[in-house]
């Protein structure tokens, strides 16, 4: 246990250095904030063009919060998978880390933890910017904290677990690791009710979205963070039939299923990579 904690701490520290030490702290902070805020402002301007400057509607807050929370989906999936690719292809240290007497999962999650921490800062700043500047409807007094914290924790765990499966696949791919990541994150973006309710999707897509854990995660986080907005959106969200308890139960069940599936994928990919000698290959991608 103590060894695992040490591995986690050192991996997180290494991740922090790789993320941040290429520049001075001020520039890094600016970089970390500008990108997510710009991504969110694209949606804001799309909205403003249509509403001629109005940001008062419930849909605006729905879209804004969903997009802010989606940063976790993109960054956590990417963060876990990129550990394998970056260490193997760029720094060429994967083989040393792999044979070191440490728990490899702990190392990966330690590296990913720093991504979650940096993303959390981006999410918080985006939300604060939205509330203060754009009038996003988040009433701190009305936040359902237990639901928000439980949904957030479960969702992040689920994303890390899915990232592990993708990380396993990137053992076996050369240049496709990032594309597969973007593909999975992109599917969640379209089908999980991130920036628009799933009811606007065609019937088949709306059905698929109900099999994706991110759909329930988004709904859970929204119900915790902006219960008034979810109530105003009403049946448009497509999930009004799910009570908070059932929503969380679905999230727990999908996390457990993904845990077993992801571990199986990672182990199978790991075995295949060893057999084919791909742990220390470099493909210059």
């Amino acid at each position: 246990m103590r060894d695992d904690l040490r591995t986690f701490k050192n991996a997180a520290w290494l991740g922090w250095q790789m993320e941040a030490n290429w520049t001075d702290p001020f520039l890094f902070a600016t970089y970390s904030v500008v990108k997510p805020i710009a991504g969110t402002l694209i949606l804001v301007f799309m909205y403003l063009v249509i509403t001629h400057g109005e940001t008062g509607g419930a849909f605006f807050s729905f879209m804004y919060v969903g997009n802010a929370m989606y940063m976790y989906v993109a960054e956590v999936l990417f963060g876990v998978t990129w550990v394998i690719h970056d260490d193997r292809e760029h720094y060429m240290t994967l083989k040393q880390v792999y044979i070191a007497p440490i728990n490899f999962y702990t190392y990966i999650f330690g590296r990913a933890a720093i991504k979650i921490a940096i993303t959390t800062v981006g999410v918080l700043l985006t939300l604060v910017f939205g509330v203060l500047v754009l009038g996003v409807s988040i009433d701190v007094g009305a936040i359902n904290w237990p639901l928000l914290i439980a949904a957030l924790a479960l969702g992040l765990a689920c994303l890390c677990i899915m990232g592990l499966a993708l990380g396993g696949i990137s053992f076996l791919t050369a240049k496709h690791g990032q594309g597969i990541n973007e593909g999975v994150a992109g599917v969640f973006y379209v089908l999980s009710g991130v920036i628009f309710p799933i009811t606007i999707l065609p019937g088949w897509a709306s059905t698929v979205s109900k099999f994706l854990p991110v759909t329930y995660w988004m709904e859970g986080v929204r119900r915790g963070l902006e219960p008034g907005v979810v109530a105003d959106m009403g049946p448009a969200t497509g999930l009004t039939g799910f009570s908070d308890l059932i929503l969380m139960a679905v999230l727990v069940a999908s996390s457990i299923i993904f845990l077993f599936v992801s571990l199986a994928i990672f182990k199978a990919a790991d075995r295949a990579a060893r057999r084919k000698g791909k742990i220390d290959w470099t493909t210059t991608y």
Partner: protein
Amino acid sequence: MTETWLLRNLRAVRGRAYPRIVGANREPSWVFFDVVLPLLTVAAYAYIYKFMNAPKEFVGFVILGGAMTAFWLNILWSMASQLYWEKETGNLSLFLLAPISRMSILAGMAVGGLFFTTLRAASTMIIGIVAFGIALNLSEPLMLILVFVVTMIALYGMGMMFASLYLMFGREAYHVSNLMTEPIYLASGFYFPVKALGFWAAAGASVIPITLGLDALRQLFYPSTGELYQFLPVTVELAILSVLCIVFIVLSKLSLDYMEKLGKSTGRLTLRWQ
């Protein structure tokens, strides 16, 4: 300038373009990664406009913008970052030793990248049009082609300039390219008319050729929305883009010479893992 010199450099252009024109299309997986993936973002943004009951032209704006992201990403990751990657993989020193103009290498990258990306962007556009049932106005095809070609020359000129500037970067190269993705999508109005940013912000963003190119293409594809959403008239945008073509190509030559000189004097030009 002798005939041999010219031929040698033309061969260098062809040689550097070859991997992008032929090699990059050998593996069919590009269809999924380069065509389907951009469609996911396009679809998400299109559904937002649909949910808001926006005029149907806006879905067309999104599809056009989504297709054009391929060119901007190609500029960032396959033009600007390319000499940095070449340095990291050890090819840059070979390029510098070869008896050719460095501009031939950049020109080859641009020609190959333009072909490679046009194929992908056109595929994204066609699938998007079919999937969302979009109608485009093609009443001025020559003007459309002219605007597109001039935009691309200016854009790839900018990419050539960035490529030499990136030689100064170490790990910053990756982060700089990353930083110039969403903020440029925002500033250049990839998914909404750039006029919405206000005149001065749109004017500032016009230094990026894709801003004016995209605005002009939207006006040509949707002439009925021109007055309401246009930033500048198409002819004015075309004139500005023509000036940008010359400016960026001259700047790329000057910056390449400067960076090469600076790199040689500091001994960092081919130094890896900085």
